[in-house]
């Protein structure tokens, strides 16, 4: 088991955990955190992959950077949205379920 594998496996486990959290955590902030964990997992895997071979691969790094910016942007917006939601609905969670009886 190489270092790459360890990072990689950690990455995917983080991803799965994050997604699991997203699915199961009712609080919106926790959902967002879960998402960030998941994306961190993916980024970790990317970085790990860059370390394979004899030469450091700059491409995944660039991709991760891009990914991070996107992730930051999305998270910021999501937090704003969550805050707005809480202000309007008074609840930090999404209604379960979303669909009302027509």
């Amino acid at each position, binding site marked *: 088991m190489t270092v790459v594998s360890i990072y990689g496996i950690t990455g995917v486990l983080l991803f799965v955990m994050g997604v699991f959290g997203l699915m199961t955590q009712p609080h919106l902030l926790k959902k967002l955190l879960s*998402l960030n964990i998941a994306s961190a997992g993916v980024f970790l895997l990317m970085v790990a992959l860059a370390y394979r071979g004899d030469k450091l691969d700059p491409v995944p790094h660039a991709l991760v950077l891009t990914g991070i910016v996107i992730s930051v942007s999305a998270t910021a917006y999501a937090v704003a949205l969550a805050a707005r939601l809480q202000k309007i609905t008074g609840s930090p969670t999404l*209604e379960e379920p979303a*669909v009302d009886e027509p």
Partner: protein
Amino acid sequence: MIPVLQQPETWLVAIPALGAATTFAFREQGRRGVVSFVLAGIAISTAMTFAKLLLRGPYSHSIGGWVAPLGITWQIDGLAAAMILLTSLVGVMISRYALEYFGSSAEEQRQAAYFWPLWFFLLSGLYAIFLTADIFNWYVTLELSGLAAVGLITLSEKPQALTGSMRYLLIALCASLFYLLGVVFLYGEYGSLDLTTLAARIQPGSVTQVALALMTIGLIAKAALFPLHFWLPPAHANAPSPVSAALSALVVKAGFYILLRLQLVLWPVVSTRYLAIGLGALGAAAILWGSAQAIRQSRLKLLIAYSTVAQIGYLFIMFPLLHAGWAGDPLWASYAWAGGVYQALSHGLAKAALFLAAGVVIHAVGDDRLDSLRGLGEKLPLTATAMALAGISLMGIPPGAGFIAKWLLLSASVASGQWGWAVVMILGGLMAVGYLFRVYRRLLTARDVPVLHQPPRRMEAVALTLAILSLVFGLSSYPLFYLLRIGAPASVGLYLEGLP
């Protein structure tokens, strides 16, 4: 000037993006001018892109002059052109509509101030999606358009819109991660992000399969395929109407488009037909489930949104048909291909028309309960006509464009002996009749309604134009098929080669 004229595709991305920045930075000043400029730009660039395509055949554009796999490459062929056509048509129309939709009240002006930049970014993102052939670039463009789309939904400050968009956002982000994970695996396995390069290198293998499966999951969630569609109806139904139109007509197609590209390039090599059948089964379930839900709704926009869920199902039935064709007679695959793309186009036009018409209704009577529609047929004849004409396409009745799509898909399924899909599609058509006529019969009910606000004629005209377009494409498929034939992969091009 010559190089500009030679690369019209770049303007498709650049013009709306610059328009977005401008409308953001300068807000009210000269907005109409900027919008007109952008729309004209879109129209001209689209036309020129097509002209170039027709003259030169399929071509690629290596960004920065860096050829793949180092750089990002755009591939412009018939399929991309078809989606660009849809985007331009619907985009221009929605823009025209939005100019009227946001009125002069302070509140509406504030909304408009954010609508335009977000909307132009969305357009730019969509063009970028349809042009590119780089799997990571797709991630970026998906995020760009996705984030813009969510932002647009929240312009409607209704609580349902906010919760809907929150769901949408979370799902979209999660779906993107799935997709990205798949991209990472593919990159790890083949060392390239370029689709063409990948196509050359790809081999069956567990990593490949998992990667493709991950990407597929992400994309079907973005495309709102059953059972991952649940975010769509609240989001689409509660957004401002031009936004709903854009979402249903264009944004969900993005996920489908990428999946189709992957399918076409990679899957003939690696995919098993069971995967395709699985997707088809989800599509079939979507048709039935979405239609059944639409029939139950008591709000117009929810009904239309569920109709989108159903209509997306047709797109996915294309996949098992493609595979059946590849396994059997390539002609069948080409039927499925042409039919699937046509479905994307026809649904886009018709659904945009419907949502825009719904917007007119809301403008006129203040809400979109189905029962508020009673007697509106007489008060808003243009809008009612738009709904009716758009519905023809959705129901798959000639001369709606949806008929051509359904015809080809049906032909493929019958010819390849896959009767199940045919039955579902026919049932779906009938159910579409079921939910659409819930609308129409209220429109035709005799009731004297006081229209609260006479909507601007232009809004009605735009909806009607789109609806008529959906019939125009239904009357003759040749123009689109000529376009689509350019650079169609050999595996699906047989039918279109038969064009005179």
